[in-house]
């Protein structure tokens, strides 16, 4: 996976998020303040505008640039969280023009670590972590078990999708939805959903080859 592919994935994620803006906002309406899609769309629109300036940069610089851009345009909870995720992923890809499958897995691990650190959250609190963590686990298991990245990522996406479903069954203890207590039951977490979309998009781009 080279820097061009990474740029392609980022561009595709930006497109996807903009397309799902209303859906994500609608989800946030139910258990939050109805801005998750608006926030991310604003951020990824500005990422899109920045992409040309990243053209020849290494993967670490690209991911860090995306993170910085998200931090300074998204706002809300998801801005610092996704921003930190990309920045942390960028850290472990510093100077690299290409990633091995193992490095890709390590980058996702770093991203998740960033979210946990920044959000002081763990799995099971009805946040983006409930999509990201299971996805990471399935992906890592797949790679460790000898699957190729595409196949492993397919498992990861399935796990993330299950994680999103799982968020419907639990009460939020982090983020804005936590104020609703029982009322957050039955609703899927917007952040987990946007995380699923990002992973799905990465998968689709890689599958296209």
């Amino acid at each position, binding site marked *: 996976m080279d820097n061009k592919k990474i740029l392609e994935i980022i561009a595709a994620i930006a497109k996807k998020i903009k397309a799902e803006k209303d859906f994500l*906002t609608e989800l946030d309406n139910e258990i*939050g303040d*109805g*801005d998750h899609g608006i926030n991310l769309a604003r951020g990824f629109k500005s990422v899109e505008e920045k992409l040309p300036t990243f053209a020849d940069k290494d993967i670490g610089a690209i991911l860090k640039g995306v993170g910085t851009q998200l*931090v300074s345009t998204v*706002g*809300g*909870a998801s801005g610092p969280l996704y921003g930190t995720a990309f920045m942390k992923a960028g850290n472990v890809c510093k100077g690299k023009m290409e990633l091995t499958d193992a490095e890709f897995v390590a980058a996702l691990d770093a991203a998740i670590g960033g979210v946990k650190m920044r959000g002081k959250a763990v799995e099971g609190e009805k946040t983006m972590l409930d999509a990201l963590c299971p996805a990471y686990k399935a992906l890592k298991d797949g790679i460790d078990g000898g699957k190729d990245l595409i196949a492993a990522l397919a498992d990861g996406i399935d796990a993330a999708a299950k994680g999103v479903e799982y968020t419907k069954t639990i009460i939020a203890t982090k983020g*804005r939805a936590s*104020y609703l207590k029982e009322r957050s039951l039955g609703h899927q977490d917007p952040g987990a959903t946007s995380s699923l979309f990002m992973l799905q998009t990465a998968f689709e781009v890689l599958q296209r080859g």
Partner: protein
Amino acid sequence: MKKLINSVEAVEEQMIQGLVKSAPKKLRKLECGNVVVRAEKKENKVALVSGGGSGHEPSHGGFVGKGMLDCAVAGAVFTSPTPDKIFEGIKAVATDAGVLCIVKNYTGDVLNFEMAIDMASDEDIKVDHVVVNDDVAVQDSLYTTGRRGVAGTVLVHKIAGAKAEEGATLEEVKAVAEKVIANVRTMGMAISPCTVPAAGKPGFELSENEMEIGIGIHGEPGTHRDKIATADEIAKTLLDKILADIDYKGREVVVLVNGMGATPLMELYIINNFVQDYLAAAGVKVYDTMVGNYMTSIEMAGFSLTLLRLDDELKKLYDAPADTPALKR
């Protein structure tokens, strides 16, 4: 969505411009974004920086001025501002005495302010922060995000602002802000929702005989939905929850009857009529009362009640002069 705006994209900036133009001798907007500062930087005092999403007008820009804030940073509607903008605000007003950020307890606000404070510390600016969490509608717990920060924030602005204006140190200003936070409690409700301009439709829907109890200030639904009741019954529900939280008996308090944006003052006064009688009967002595729109949710109809338990220091600082667009004393 029916609003008196020009375009969804321009809401935040035109609003901040309009605020600053209403008091051009006293307020200034930073070039970099929707950051309001005093027209003349006040040196030799701790600088107070607050902010949050837009949509809470007159919070927070309306409280910039003598005796209150030095800077207010406005994010998109109901979305906390980003760290870079907060950092610009901090830089613009920072003095040798230091900067105190007043943050409401929402994940978004806390995270963005934390990152900004890191950036400022990296540049050797002396900066600290307090987190306001006055909303008794949500339970405080070690395992959750804790209580939200709502209308009580205005009283933190007022009192910490007065302390800073007196020339107190950063530690002293922070201590008095913490004291207000320890003694202020709020709870709110809504009879109609609000519409984030960019979303184009209301955050929730209520039928003619329903209300939301325990709302925050971002148009979210409350902790529960109920059949609508009389103003007195609703006020009693909110007050009981507040009074059960810390002991107000025999103490002097400031009462804040806060409109959510579209609530007519007529209704706020009707509510205050009950609140005053109820507090008197409960043995709580009212030192002063504020009635009006202080921490709103755009055009939501509803209100919140806030009680601040006073001591001599808080009384003196509450009474100290203030000259801001939304609060004069």
